[in-house]
C-alpha cells in the first residue's frame, strides 16, 4: 500500500516537473499552468516522503528499504530519521526539499511574473526530472521485498504489485546513526542548503538562456541564496558537532572527503553571496557571478556524487550503488551544458561598470572572492587528487589533514583580515588614511586581548595569532556599530542605546553580516585553542584507580552493562573531581552494541565547561579493567557558538528582509 502511494507520488512529481519544463520554456508562460505544475511537484514530493515515513512508522517490512534499514526496536525519533538515513530515502528527502523550493520560486513568480521566472521554474523542473527520475530507477525506496531472510531483504522487485515476502524484522539503521539525535537534524539541514542552491542556479541559467543578463536574476534569487547558505552553514556546524559528540575527539573536522563535499559548495556560496552584492550595487562582476553560481550548484552535485558513489574511501562513506555513474553523468551534463551556455552568452554581458580602485568596498569583496575561491580550489584539489593520480599513474597517495591545514590556516587568517577591513571601506573609493584611523581602536583592542591571552592562556604562536585576528574582526564590527550609533545619536540628541537600535534596524542585512563575521572569528579562535592546546593520553585503569589529567582527578568506579530495546550498552563510570578533590561530575563513556554486532560503537563522555571540554573515550573494557583515552579541548565551546552565530546572522538577515520586503543593499 505504501509502495503504491509512494510510487504514485513520485510519478506525480515527475509529471509535474515535466510540465514545469514544458510550460516554463514557452514564449508566453501562463502563471496558472505553472502553478498547477508546481503544485503537482509539491504534492508528489510530499506524498512520496510521507509514504516512506508512514511505512517506517507502521513497520511495513514488505518494502526493501524498510526491511534493510529499519528495525522494530528503533526508538522514536530515529525511526523517522531512518527515512533519510540510507541512500534511497535521502533522495526522497532531496526531492521533497526541491519541491518546496520550487514552490517558493513559484510564489515569487506569481508576485512578479516574468519570462525569467518562468525559465527558472523550467530549470527547477529539469533538476526535478533528474531527482525524481532517480527515485523511479536507481534509487527506488519503494521496491517490494520478494525474498527475505531473518533480518533483511535479499531480493526485491520494483513493481508494487509483486508478491511480497517480509522479514520479521530488520537490522535497523547504521549504529553510528542511532547514537545521537543530531543525526536526525543534520541531513535535512544540509539538504536545505544543497537544494537551495538550485534556485539561484535556475535563475542564472534562465537569464543566460533568455539572453537577459543584468541584475534581475540575482535580485529574484537572493533570498533563496541566503536561505540556502544559512542552512548549509548550520548543517556543516551540526555535522561537526555530531561527529565530535559521537565519533571521536577531533572528529569534528578531519578533512574527510565527505566533509569536504559539504564545505566546497559552502565556500563558493559564501563567495557568491558577497560578489552578488557588488553586482546588485554596481552592476559589475556579472559574468563572474554566473560562473560562481554554476560552480556552486555543480559542487553540490559533486559532493553528493563523492558521498554516494563509493569512489573515495571515507569514514562517512555510504555503500556503493549504481547511483554513482548516474550522478556523474548528471554532473557532467550540468557543467558542460551551463558552461557552454555561459560561453555562448559572454558577448551579451554588460561590461560597462569598471571598478575604480582596490581600496574600496568592491575591492574588499574581490579580495574575499579571491581568497574563498582559492580556498575552495585547495579543498577540491586535495579531495580529487588521489583519484586523478591513481587513475592516471596507478600510484596511491593520501591527502589528509597536514596538507589541508597547512594551506587552510593562512587562507583563513587572510580572510579574517579582509573581514576586518572590508566593512569599514566605503563604496567606490576609500581614503586609506581615514580607514586606518578607524582601524586603530579595533587593532588596539585585539593586540591588548592577544597580550592577555598570551599571558594567561598560552604563548603558542598560532593561538595568540588566532586570538588577535579573531578579536580584531569582532572589535571592528562592534566599534563600527558604536561609532556610527554615537554619530547618529549625537545628531538626533538621543541616548546611545537608541542609536544602536536605529542602526541595527535600518540596515539589518549589513549588521547581520557583521554578526556572521563575528561567528567566523569565534570559530577560528575556538579551533585554534582546541586543536593546539588539547591534551591526549591513554590510560589503563582497574576499578578504584585514579589519574590526574587536565586539571581533573578521574577515578574509575565500576563498569556497567544494560540492555535497551535496540542495543546493549557496556561502559564504565568515572568520577570526576577537581584538583582539590571536590566532586565535579560523573562521566560514563560507553560502547554500544547494536543487533548482532560484536564490536561496539563508542559513545564518548564529554564534560563541557567554559574552560573547555573533558573528553573520555572507552577504548577497551574487560574483566581486568578499562583502557580509557583522555582528551581535553580547551575553548571548544567557541567553535560551536561561533558556528551557531554564523547561522544566526543568516537567520537575522532573512527575517529582516521579510519585513522590509525589499532586496536590501549593503550600506
Amino acid at each position, binding site marked *: 500500500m505504501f509502495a503504491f502511494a509512494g510510487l504514485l507520488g513520485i510519478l506525480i512529481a515527475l509529471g509535474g516537473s515535466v510540465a514545469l519544463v514544458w510550460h516554463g520554456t514557452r514564449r508566453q508562460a501562463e502563471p496558472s499552468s505553472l502553478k498547477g505544475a508546481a503544485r503537482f511537484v509539491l504534492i508528489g514530493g510530499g506524498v512520496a516522503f510521507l509514504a516512506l515515513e508512514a511505512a517506517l512508522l507502521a513497520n511495513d517490512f514488505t518494502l526493501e528499504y524498510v526491511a534493510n534499514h529499519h528495525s522494530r526496536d528503533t526508538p522514536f525519533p530515529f525511526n523517522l530519521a531512518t527515512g533519510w538515513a540510507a541512500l534511497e530515502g535521502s533522495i526522497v528527502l532531496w526531492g521533497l526539499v526541491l519541491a518546496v523550493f520550487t514552490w517558493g520560486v513559484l510564489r515569487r513568480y506569481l508576485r512578479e511574473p516574468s519570462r525569467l521566472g518562468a525559465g527558472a521554474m523550467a530549470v527547477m523542473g529539469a533538476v526535478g526530472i533528474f531527482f525524481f527520475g532517480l527515485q523511479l530507477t536507481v534509487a527506488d525506496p519503494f521496491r517490494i521485498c520478494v525474498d527475505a531472510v531473518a533480518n533483511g531483504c535479499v531480493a526485491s522487485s520494483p513493481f508494487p504489485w509483486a508478491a511480497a515476502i517480509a522479514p520479521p524484522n530488520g537490522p535497523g539503521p547504521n549504529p553510528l546513526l542511532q547514537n545521537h539525535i543530531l543525526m536526525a537534524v543534520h541531513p535535512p539541514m544540509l539538504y536545505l542548503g544543497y537544494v537551495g542552491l538550485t534556485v539561484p542556479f535556475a535563475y542564472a541559467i534562465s537569464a543566460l538562456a*533568455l*539572453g*537577459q543578463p543584468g541584475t534581475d536574476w540575482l535580485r529574484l534569487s537572493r533570498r533563496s541564496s541566503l536561505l540556502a547558505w544559512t542552512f548549509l552553514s548550520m548543517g556543516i556546524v551540526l555535522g561537526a558537532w555530531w561527529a565530535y559528540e559521537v565519533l*571521536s*575527539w577531533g*572528529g569534528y573536522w*578531519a*578533512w*574527510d572527503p565527505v566533509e569536504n563535499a559539504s564545505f566546497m559548495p559552502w565556500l563558493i556560496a559564501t563567495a557568491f553571496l558577497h560578489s552578488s552584492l557588488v553586482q546588485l550595487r554596481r552592476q559589475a562582476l556579472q559574468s563572474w557571478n554566473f560562473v560562481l553560481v554554476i560552480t556552486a550548484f555543480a559542487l553540490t552535485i559533486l559532493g553528493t556524487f563523492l558521498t554516494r558513489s563509493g569512489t573515495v*574511501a571515507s569514514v562517512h*562513506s555510504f555503500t556503493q550503488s549504481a547511483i554513482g555513474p548516474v550522478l556523474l*553523468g548528471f554532473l*557532467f551534463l550540468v557543467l*558542460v*551544458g551551463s558552461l*557552454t*551556455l555561459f560561453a*555562448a552568452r559572454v*558577448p551579451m554581458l*554588460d*561590461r560597462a561598470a*569598471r*571598478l*575604480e580602485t582596490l581600496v574600496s568596498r568592491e*575591492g574588499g569583496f*574581490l579580495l574575499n572572492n*579571491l581568497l574563498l*575561491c*582559492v580556498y575552495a*580550489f*585547495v579543498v577540491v*584539489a*586535495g579531495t580529487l*587528487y588521489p583519484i586523478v593520480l591513481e*587513475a592516471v599513474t596507478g600510484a*596511491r*597517495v*593520501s*591527502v*589528509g*589533514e*597536514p*596538507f589541508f591545514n597547512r*594551506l587552510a590556516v593562512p587562507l583563513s587568517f587572510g580572510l579574517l583580515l579582509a573581514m576586518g577591513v572590508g566593512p569599514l571601506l566605503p563604496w567606490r573609493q576609500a581614503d586609506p588614511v*581615514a580607514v586606518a*584611523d578607524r582601524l*586603530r581602536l579595533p*587593532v*588596539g583592542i585585539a*593586540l591588548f586581548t*592577544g*597580550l592577555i591571552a*598570551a599571558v594567561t592562556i598560552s*604563548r603558542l*604562536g598560532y593561538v*595568540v595569532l588566532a586570538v588577535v585576528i579573531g578579536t580584531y574582526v569582532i572589535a571592528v564590527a562592534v566599534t563600527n556599530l558604536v561609532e556610527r550609533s554615537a554619530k547618529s545619536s549625537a545628531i538626533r540628541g538621543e541616548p546611545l542605546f537608541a542609536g544602536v537600535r536605529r542602526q541595527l534596524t535600518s540596515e539589518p542585512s549589513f549588521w547581520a553580516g557583521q554578526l556572521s563575521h563575528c561567528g567566523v572569528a569565534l570559530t577560528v579562535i575556538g579551533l585554534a585553542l582546541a586543536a593546539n592546546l588539547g591534551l591526549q593520553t*591513554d590510560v589503563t585503569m582497574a576499578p578504584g584507580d585514579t589519574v590526574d589529567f587536565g586539571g581533573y582527578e578521574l577515578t574509575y568506579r565500576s563498569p556497567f552493562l544494560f540492555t535497551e530495546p535496540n542495543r546493549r550498552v557496556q561502559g564504565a563510570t568515572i568520577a570526576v573531581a577537581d584538583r582539590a578533590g571536590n566532586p565535579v561530575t560523573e562521566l560514563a563513556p560507553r560502547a554500544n552494541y547494536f543487533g548482532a554486532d560484536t564490536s561496539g560503537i*563508542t559513545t564518548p563522555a564529554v564534560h563541557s565547561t567554559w574552560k573547555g571540554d573533558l573528553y573520555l*573515550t572507552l577504548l577497551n573494557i574487560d574483566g581486568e579493567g578499562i583502557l580509557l*583515552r583522555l582528551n581535553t579541548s580547551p575553548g571548544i565551546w567557541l567553535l560551536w557558538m561561533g558556528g551557531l552565530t554564523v547561522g544566526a546572522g543568516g537567520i537575522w538577515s532573512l527575517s529582516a528582509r521579510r519585513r522590509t520586503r525589499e532586496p536590501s543593499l549593503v550600506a
Partner: protein
Amino acid sequence: MPSPSRRTGSWLVLALLAVAVAMVVVTAPPPAEDRAQAIGSQVRCPVCQGEAIVDSPSETARNMMDLVRARIDEGLTDQQIIDELLTSYGGSLLLNPPARGATLWLWLAPLVALGVGTAMVARRFHAAPADHLPAAAAPPVSPTLSRRWIWGAAVLVLGGAVAVATVGQFQQARPEDQSLSGVAGEDFDPDSVSNETLEAVVAANADNAAINGMRLALANRYFEEGNYQKAFGHYEIVLDNQPAPNEAANAFARLGWMVFDGNGEADLGIELIDRGLELVPNDAFAIYLKGRIIWCGQGDADTAADLFSSVLSSTGLDAEIQDRVETDLAAAAAGEDCQ
C-alpha cells in the same frame, strides 16, 4: 579627524603593543615536543579511512603509536620510523603528500591558482579605460543562441559520453581483481597441481561427496607413482562414499593390482578386479591388469594372452599401455614366464 600628532601617537602605542605581543610569543619556551604525536599525525591509520594514527581509537592505530614510541626510545629518527611503516603499507599511508614527484603538483597548484586569481583581480582595476565600450556601442546580440553553439555543446556532451563509456570499460579490468575459484571451479585442471595440493583440497573437503572425483584422481596418481600405501587409503575412502559405478570400477581395478603387486595375493586381486569389471565390463585397463595377475600370479600364460588380445581390440587405449600390452601379448602367447 584627530590631529597628526595624536594620530602618530596612537600608532606608536599600537606598534608597542604589537611588539609586546610578539615578544611574549617569541620568548615562549618551546612546547614539550611530543615526537610521537608529530609523527603520528602524519601517518594514516590503514584501517580507519583517513584518520591519523594519533587520533584513531582503533586497536591497529594504537599498536602503531606504541610502535612509534618504542622506536623513538630506541633512538631512530622520524624519517626512519616513517619509512619503516611505509615499507609495510606503502606510500598511501602518508597523510602529508611529499612535496616532490607526483604530488609536487598538488602543492604547487594552490599557488598557481592564487597567482591566476590575483592577476584576474588586478586586471579589473588596471585595464586602460579606452578598451571598454559604452554599452550602447556594443552590437546587439540576438537572444536566441546561434546554431553553432548548440551543435558545439551537443558534440562536447556526446564526445564526453563516448569517452566515459569506452575508457571506463577499458580501465575496469584491473589485474588486482582476479581470483582463483574454489573446489567447484570449472577451470580447475587437476593435472596442473601437485600431489600435496590435491591432498590438501581433498582433506579440506572431506565431508563433501563431490570431492570423490578428485580423491580418485589423487589416488590414481599415487598408484602410478607406486605409492601404494597412500593410494590404498584413498581408494578405500572412495569406495566408502557412494561412488559412481565408473569410479568404483576404477578403484577396484587398481586395488586388485595393488593387493597382488604389494602383498602377492593373486586370488584376492583377481576377485577385486572382477568386482570392478561387473560394474564396467569393458574397462581395458582392468582387463589388462587382470591378465597380468593371471600370467604373473597364477602362471597361466594362455588365459593371459587371450585377455591381452581382447584388450588390444578395444579402442581408445593409451599408446603407452598399447605398447606394453603388445609386448606382453607376444611374450605370453609364446608361453614365456611373466616379466
